[in-house]
């Protein structure tokens, strides 16, 4: 009896009602990646506000 084939990267399996994927080294739960990246702002705009629109002084 031969050994089960080695999983490939991206393989999917059910573990009960949970889905797992093989990431190349181990089986890990298939979860949604957090979309919370906040890279620096290169342009320096603040929603297009005109910096001269709100002057610190009146008159």
């Amino acid at each position, binding site marked *: 009896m031969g050994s089960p084939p080695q999983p490939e*990267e*991206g393989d999917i399996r059910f573990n009960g*009602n949970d889905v797992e994927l093989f990431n190349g080294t181990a089986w890990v739960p298939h979860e949604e*990646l957090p979309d919370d990246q906040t890279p620096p702002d290169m342009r320096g705009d603040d929603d297009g506000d005109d910096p001269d629109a709100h002057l610190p002084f009146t008159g």
Partner: protein
Amino acid sequence: MSTPAEPQPGAPDPDPVLADLRASVTDMRATARWMTAAAAAVGALVLAGGPLVVVKDLDDAGDVVTAAGGMLLAVVGVVWVVWRTGDVLAPRTATLDDLGSPELDGLRALIDRSPADFYGPTASTPAGLRRERRLRLTVAARLEALLAREDDPARARILTHEAAVARRNALLIQRLQHRLLAWVHAWHVRRSLRRARRDTLLASLLVLAGAVLYVTAPLDAKAEPTVVYVCGAAPAAPPKAVHLKEDPCVR
């Protein structure tokens, strides 16, 4: 119990970070265009105005050579500015491998301060990001294939949900890749613009030196003309332009 409806795949929302990066490149190129226009105006002034100002005052070959040299210097300065700012405007390619080049040291330092904001939660290098994208696309494709073959309604519901998650994950990684490419591109353009600004400052000194040279070309000291008097029988009247203390023909 029914699962909530999964969001249908459609056109992804436009990425504000990507739009920002592209707008910054547009701004930088607009700056370069203004610099080129200013250099061209100076060049036109030098070539058209210079000769009109000084040509009538050029007395000898030395004046002409000096004026020509000054104009040439000024033109070289203008050409230098146009050449350098043209580098900012020229289209360029950007790849993730460019991150390894010395030119992007500043961008690498920026990324190293918060790598997760550039590479996402699972990758830490451009190669890792590529690999993550391949993984997520493969997972999404295999889940879709499993869903297409699944007969059990309960597992089909689970697979429907997981397939939607896989699609969102793949889109996220793809978006991070596009952002990183846009960062590489914008950094290249930023570097070109800084170099163009530095060279414009140096070239303006050259233009100024050339302008001073050709404006002052006719102002060199001229040698006094030699006047020869021919004394005849009667004393000759001295030339009007010559003021003598004594009559040169008087013996």
